[in-house]
């Protein structure tokens, strides 16, 4: 076990360095310059001298290898540098925005699982029947409808039916817990539907496979009622692939909420990323991408550990 964790951690670091190099190079190759954007965006006339001075101040005039070494040495003690636009530390920029994104992601995962488990089980058990078909339609709809469109439909429906619209300003948990949750529930529903569709489809097919396994037949031959056969003998094994999918989807959510946050006017990291890209804020983009990578790896690792808990063969 220790060996496994150590080797995972080693891979983790290697991947992280790889991601860091890649994102650094990509940003330098891509067109756009933060100083140009910042100073000349409004059509302002700024002398080349001022721009050069600003570039020097931000360290953008140094040769690329030097810039990279600077960034990496900062990274080594968890300093992601300062935003080139707001001058605030990247860590601070991200940490003030990550909360809302995480909340939506977790809430969506909870909703997704709560919907997917019964639907997946029901459709596997009623394989081929009208119920299975109905669940398939629901799932395929969730997968194919774009979240922003669903989001707008949902908002429109709420506005027209009960006259509710999401608050313009973010309400914090401490000032009004219900108001806080109410602004999360819509995006979580939209994202959770999609999530539930993926998980339910996966669970359905893996449960169908497991129900054909010899040990399920053994369980039936013992005289267990069908309910116990499914809960005790089939479900545990069928959940494994569904957990992988849920983990991957969840990890993806953090960076993938960009559009949803825009639609629901949430000030999360998704919007921060859009903003940073628009402003060519190199340090902020690098920080965000690294964070997504870390999050992705952590979730994958957690899924691996969960596997070991559920499947004794992997211990």
């Amino acid at each position: 076990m220790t060996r496994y964790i150590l080797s995972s951690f080693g891979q983790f670091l290697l991947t992280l360095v790889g991601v860091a190099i890649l994102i650094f190079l990509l940003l330098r190759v891509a067109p756009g310059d933060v100083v140009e954007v910042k100073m000349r965006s409004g059509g302002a006339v700024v002398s080349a001298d001022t721009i050069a001075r600003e570039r020097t101040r931000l360290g953008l005039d140094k040769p690329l290898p030097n810039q990279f070494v600077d960034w990496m040495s900062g990274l080594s003690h968890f300093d992601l540098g300062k935003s080139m636009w707001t001058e605030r530390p990247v860590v601070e920029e991200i940490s003030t925005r990550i909360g809302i994104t995480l909340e939506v992601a977790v809430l969506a995962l909870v909703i997704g699982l709560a919907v997917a488990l019964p639907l997946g089980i029901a459709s596997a058990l009623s394989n081929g029947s009208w119920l299975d078909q109905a669940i398939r339609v629901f799932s395929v709809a969730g997968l194919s409808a774009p979240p922003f469109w669903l989001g707008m439909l949902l908002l429109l429906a709420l506005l027209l039916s009960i006259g509710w619209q999401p608050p313009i300003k973010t309400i914090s948990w401490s000032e009004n817990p219900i108001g806080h949750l109410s602004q999360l529930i819509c995006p979580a529903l939209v994202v959770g539907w999609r999530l539930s569709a993926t998980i339910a489809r996966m669970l359905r097919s893996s449960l169908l496979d497991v129900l054909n396994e010899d040990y399920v037949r053994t369980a039936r031959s013992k005289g267990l009622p069908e309910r116990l056969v499914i809960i005790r003998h089939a479900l545990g094994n069928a959940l494994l692939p569904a957990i992988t999918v849920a983990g991957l989807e969840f990890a993806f959510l953090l960076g993938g909420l960009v559009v949803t946050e825009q639609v629901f006017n949430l000030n999360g990291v998704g919007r921060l990323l859009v903003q940073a890209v628009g402003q060519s804020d190199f340090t902020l983009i690098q920080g965000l991408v690294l964070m997504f990578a870390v999050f992705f790896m952590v979730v994958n690792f957690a899924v691996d550990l969960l596997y070991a808990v559920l499947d004794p063969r992997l211990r």
Partner: protein
Amino acid sequence: MPVWMPQTYIGIQKSTCKILFLGFRVPEAREAGLSLDEPLLAIKNLKVEFASERGIVRALDGVDFEIGRSEIVAVVGESGSGKSVTALSLMGLLPRTARVTAGQAVFEGRDLLKMSSADLCATRGRDIGMIFQDPMTSLNPTLTIGFQIGETLREHLGFGPAESRARTLELLKWVGIPDAESRLDQYPHQFSGGMRQRVMIAIGLACQPKLLIADEPTTALDVTVQAQILDLMSGLVRKLGASLLIITHNLGVVARYADRVVVMYSGRIAERGEASAVFNNPRHFYTAGLLNSAPRLDAPVQDRLETIEGQPPDPANRPEGCAFAPRCPHKIAACTQKLSLLPTDKGTLSACARQEEIAAGHLHWGGKAQGAEPTLAKQDEPAILTVDNLVKHYMVSAGWRSPMRIVKAVDGVSLSIKPGQTIGLVGESGCGKSTLGRMILRLDDPTSGRIMIGGHDATHAKGDDLRQLRRLFQVVFQDPYASLNPRKTIGEAIGEPMRVHGIAKGAKANQRVAELLNQVGLRPEMADRFPHQMSGGQRQRIGIARALAMQPKLIICDEAVSALDVSIQAQVVNLLTELKRSMNLSYLFIAHDLAVVRHIADEVLVMYLGRIVERAPRDRLYAQPQHPYTRMLLAAAPSPDPQREKARSQAALVGEPPSPFAPPPGCAFAPRCPLANEECRRAPPVLRQTGPDHHVACLRSEA
């Protein structure tokens, strides 16, 4: 009086359970007032249909038989005969696509086929236990052994956790699992196949059922383990006074254990009755053919094995009359009419229209010339293949927690094969015989050692050299289903090697494919078909045709006939023998079945945990086996002869092959060996010559 009173029933059972278990008292159903003369289970006119893409397939077409109390009944038949479907329909475990269309299965006065699902659940596991074929997949991998055994006790007998744990422990000791206390909380993957099947027996017998159904219980196990498991199972069943229904394709198993036998063919019963009567005086040509086509250790070696020509009918187009008629050498007009089971002179029942003529001695099965005992290959030519001290070590990790370990899959094997010679390589699963074959084919790289093919060093040949060498040696694999690409036609599959090696193309290749198909006994027009349209035996012939396409000098047959039914197996063995003679081929015939190897090999090597333990010319090895392991293998192989089998003592069969992860020190066989002493445990013995061409790796083979 109504026998079925679940509440009181369970009550009685619970209070008397402990006494019952230790004292093996006769099950109490007899005390409940049921007549002992009535059969425990009576199956009447059972018909089962499957919905398939080709329409309705009638898997069972009117099956009748009975199982008496404390009786062992064997249902024997080849794949597709409907024997497993019979067992599954009794337990209500048929797949969704299947439907029971007619018939009854009366178990203690109640029809199993019409029971409510609640009643069926109360009967399964409680009154009828079941053991399945593959112990590797029949246990839930995520639950402990203790939980899976105790589950039955908790469900049916209302045991609490402590009580069920104590009983489970008792059960584990009962089925011969050593160190039961610590194994209770282990998971199935920590058990060997044989031990898992013991666990299955514990589950099946946990509630002391009145009937145990065992569906091919030892087919997936090694020969030496197989006999132990069957002895354990039949012994326990006898002690409990329960009945046993064994489903098997192995005639030796039937001969050894069954009181009565039911022979099935294509969804119907061909013959049934007392086992010794059916085996000694078969009154159906199918039974006779089956008994004759099984290769035996106790009969002289024949040049050709007796076979049943052709293959079983497609159950979707079964002939109205005798289903066996198309393959029967003695069919007459009467065989096309519907036949029923009629009593024979031996007190058995047979569905053969000509059973009276068989009884009168006018007709015999086969009678085909079997030829003289085959001559052994000449010994003076240079070897086509020489393998010198070949070693394959794998680095493996058994899990997150365990360190990397070296597994010595093949540990210093030498052999040589001369043109026209067949070497039989025998051993149980995990002994390294397939790894050796793969190394010779250069599909795996040896860790050390040398492979010489036709005078060239092939150990490290690469690229074009390797491709040239591969023309000389080909392979036929075990699984005829998995070793053919389902998207390629038969013709493409056979022609591919010729294309790859640039030997023939276009019309020339097609003509060659037709020739090859002819050579292996298939019609040339089959070249356009796909593998799924062929039967198992036909696919194996295709595998052989593909191997022959390159006109190789050597064919490695890796368990090439073990997946086939007895009658088909004999056909393929005969084909291999013919090809060997006409093309002067050499074979390395890898198998676990000593009887089959005896019919084809000139020299036999016995392998145990990566090493050759005995090597001798065929007749010498079977007549005077010297290594205790070879003797054990020969003793374990059952033969279809009830008298012989029932007289046989099983005392010599102990233990299981050791795990290659933790091989014992010294001689790997020492822990199971009746002759082993301290010296054997010190260092692995080397092969030494004990007779003409006879080598044994044992210090005490003379003891």
